[in-house]
């Protein structure tokens, strides 16, 4: 295995472009090193992107949107008060990934590019409308987060391409987001089901909504029927029931060591309701704690 720590994304891209065999980018390393230790993937080329300028920066742009460097850790996001105020669902989703120790290393970009349908931050990013900047030999392009994973362990990134920034939209007024996941313990597990809701209100009425489900299909889902179930409502019981039904109907899960088809389908509906209530309360300006202490 060859280890490189390039000083720019262009250099990183060129290294990857010209490498033979298996190439991996190293940001937080919390997936790459696990795969290495377990002999699942031993890359021929490992490109550490943490020496690139600006990769640890969290920047709020003039229009209120956010740009996060690709090596920003979960812990750095959680410690960032105004990012947490704007996008509590995204920040909490990232915070749910692994332990305190893992939070010291793990990144949104890594969570996304690992390609796991159960990645906690991905539904939250999809619901939030987050995009990533992808840099390759031909320059950079902006891609919706939902278009990066193409199946378990697979992404749409071409050889020589890598994510070079995470772009979170401006939050705007009267809006809130939330992410909830189901795990059998209180910590340390991979999501059995994950649900993210981002919505905007006009008065008491939901005017915009995006609902995303994780761990219930080969990739994270953005479910328009879920959004439709609550848009125009005040999140009354009927709307919540419709939301739950739409979430369950959208599931296309598998039975595995972490849960059954039936369980995932049922719990997706339960969590959709609970997450929507939290997002709604946040849009009303209330401070609501998420799942995490």
């Amino acid at each position, binding site marked *: 295995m060859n280890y490189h720590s390039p000083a720019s994304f262009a250099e990183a891209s060129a290294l990857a472009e010209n490498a033979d065999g298996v190439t991996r980018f190293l940001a937080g390393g919390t997936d790459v090193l696990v795969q290495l230790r377990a002999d699942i993937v031993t890359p021929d080329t490992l490109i550490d992107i943490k020496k690139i300028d600006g990769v640890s920066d969290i920047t709020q742009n003039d229009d209120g949107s956010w740009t996060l460097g690709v090596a920003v850790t979960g812990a750095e996001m959680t410690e960032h008060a105004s990012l947490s105020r704007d996008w509590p669902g995204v920040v909490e989703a990232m915070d749910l990934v692994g332990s305190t120790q893992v939070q010291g290393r793990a990144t949104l970009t890594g969570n996304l590019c690992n390609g796991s349908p159960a990645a906690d931050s991905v539904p939250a990013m999809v619901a939030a409308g987050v995009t990533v900047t992808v840099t390759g030999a031909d320059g950079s392009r902006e891609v919706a987060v939902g278009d990066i994973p193409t199946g378990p362990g697979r992404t749409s990134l071409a050889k020589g391409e890598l994510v070079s920034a995470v772009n979170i939209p401006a939050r705007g007024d009267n809006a809130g987001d939330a992410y909830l996941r189901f795990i059998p313990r209180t910590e340390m597990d991979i999501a*059995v089901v994950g649900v993210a809701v981002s919505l905007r209100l006009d008065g008491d009425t939901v005017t915009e909504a995006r609902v995303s489900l994780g761990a219930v299909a080969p990739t994270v889902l953005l479910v328009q029927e879920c959004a439709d179930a609550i848009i125009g409502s005040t999140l009354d019981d009927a709307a919540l029931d419709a939301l739950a039904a739409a979430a369950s109907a959208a599931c296309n899960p598998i039975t595995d060591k972490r*849960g059954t088809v039936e369980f995932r389908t*049922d719990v997706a509906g339960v969590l959709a309701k609970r997450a929507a209530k939290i997002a709604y309360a946040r849009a009303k300006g209330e401070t609501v704690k998420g799942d995490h202490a």
Partner: protein
Amino acid sequence: MALDDRKSDFTFVGTRPDRPDGLDKVTGRAKFGADAVAPGMLFGAIVRSPHAHARIVKIDTSKAEAMKGVKAVVTRADFATGLTGEFWNVQENVMAGDTALYDGHAVAAVAATSALDARDAAKLIEVEYEVLPHVTDVDKAMAADAPVIRDGTADGSVPEGMHPNVVRYHESGHGDVAAGFAEADLVIEDSFKTEATHQGYIEPHACLASLGADGKGELWCTTQGHWYAQKHCAALLGIETSQLRVTASEIGGGFGGKTTVFIEPVALALSRKANRPVKLVMSRSEVLRATGPTSSTSMDVKIGMKKDGTITAAEGVFRLQGGAFPGAPMEFTAMCAFAPYALENVRQVGYDVIANRPKQAAYRAPGSPMAAFAVESVIDLLCQELDLDPVEVRLKNASKKGTKASYGPRFDDIGLVECLEAARDHPHYSAPLEQGQGRGISCGFWFNHGGETSVSLALSEDGTVQVSVGTPDIGGSRASMALMASETLGIPYENIRVTIADTATLGYNDVSHGSRVTYASGLATIKAAQAAIAEMCKRAAAKWGIPEDAVKWEDGCAVPSGPNAGDFEPLAMADITADMGATGGPISGHFEATPEGAGVSFGVHIVDAQVDPETGKTSIPRYTVIQDAGKAVHPAYVEGQFQGGAAQGIGWALNEEYIYGEDGRLQNAVFLDYRIPVASDLPMIDTVIVEVPNPGHPYGVRGVGETGIVPPLAAIANAVSRAAGVRMHELPMSPPRILAALKADG
């Protein structure tokens, strides 16, 4: 004072001093299994079967042997031949012979100059397998169409007509159960299953081995019993037992799982072949795939009860799958099942079943927690049906002194009634429950154990004391030994240093298991101290010119035994030891025996469970452990044993399980998916230490390590079943299982 009088007033025993190894363990300097190095050391790696059951057609080691840095490759051909009995079973498990019997079974090993090279070389060893049909479930392994795993393994106890995978049979009990059931107002019969769990010690198996062609060797390893390791390694390598010196490292948890050998014989074989020391350390996934989990079980229990709560008869059938080798502790399951209750009519049957899983190993009260789950669940059902208080019913039927135990003998002094009364009177038992919560209780029983024990105690010139024991300290036992020695000798705790001696410096010691250490090594420490006291009294008598029996030992001094003995100033220990070289030579005490009076142990747990009816997720808001310790030598470590047992039981009840795929491969061989409780899963665990002295120990000590894991499975099942309103029959009670039960119940 007559030496054998049982003490009841204590100066040191029952206090909570700092443990002697505390400083080493908070500074990182304590040396565990993987922390040792030797000059010229190589690193080993093991090749393991990816198949649940496969004939090994061919092993080609040539590519690995040709790799730079590789110094030795071993297969089964490098071990002794002609072994029988348990030696043969251990050898088969340590390194497969003709057949790989489970996913993770070792088939070859390599030693190289670095750990990375060893791992790379292991990948170059090519093994050709012929895959055979497999079975991993206990009920399926007993079915007529199950593949035969190792024909001819069954012993003479198995009734005719059973599948060859049933390898041992047990039956015991007394009275007439049919007549007993006829007397009952209500009889409930139900079936239960539990999945295998792993001991989950945080330290993987690790060793450093050195063996020469001359048959002399050194082994450093993390183990609960280094004499066991010595005996088995010597047999497997074909060397003389005494030529192998084994030193126990600090041990990072065992809970029964380190009572046997896995990698140690392999490291020795590699070392012998390379003629260099070899370090071998398991990965977590190797630990989960290839070391001993518990048995999985399938159980039927039938209990008859009168309206007033009197149990009229009880019957249980317990089927235990223990991996591809005989030895599942089904007789313990059967014998422990009804032990808490005074029953006139009781019968229990056990089956030991082999399947394509790793060889089970002991795990804290092996076999007993599963039995309690089945039996105490049925008692809870009876209480619900007959509208009776669960503690009162258990009190009404509780075993006490003189009760003929369900497994045969009559109980001596036991503390079950005291534990149940403490439960009834504990504020937890009467505290109001919140919406969605249920409360469960359960009794638990473990035999406790004595075992072969040797202790040596040497006095230094300055009047301080070195105690050498042979039972690895898993949870603070050096502190307990020092307390008992200081109590006996009448000198401060700090003046005593307790060491875990290696196999070359002390007589044989049974493994640290069966809750035996504080009892047996403690008893031997007291007896060894008494032997040293006798010698010190003799020296004082000589100095004073009076008969030996005119001297007694009091508060750390030799004093005349009475006014007639003469008027002499007390001689402190240090006064005697200062010139012991001149008064007859060094003074030591030692004791070797197999003590039989371990004194059985009972406990009662109270637990509240909260079940989320929409997701089936359970949380444990409150937990109380009540257990008879006989006499708590170091109460903080007794509480720690209670709490640790409860926490492991919570994991077993709720989320821990071995998950095998259709292909017979273990699917969750990492801590991510083998879900042991984390800090945020648990509440504070309240403890009540009941002390009903054990007549078999000078200070009344009973072992406390194991009983703590017996009640939780049942207590939590009872709490969850009451909270959810639906009876749970299968462990773990994972959220999908609870939600499915809730939905099936409508």
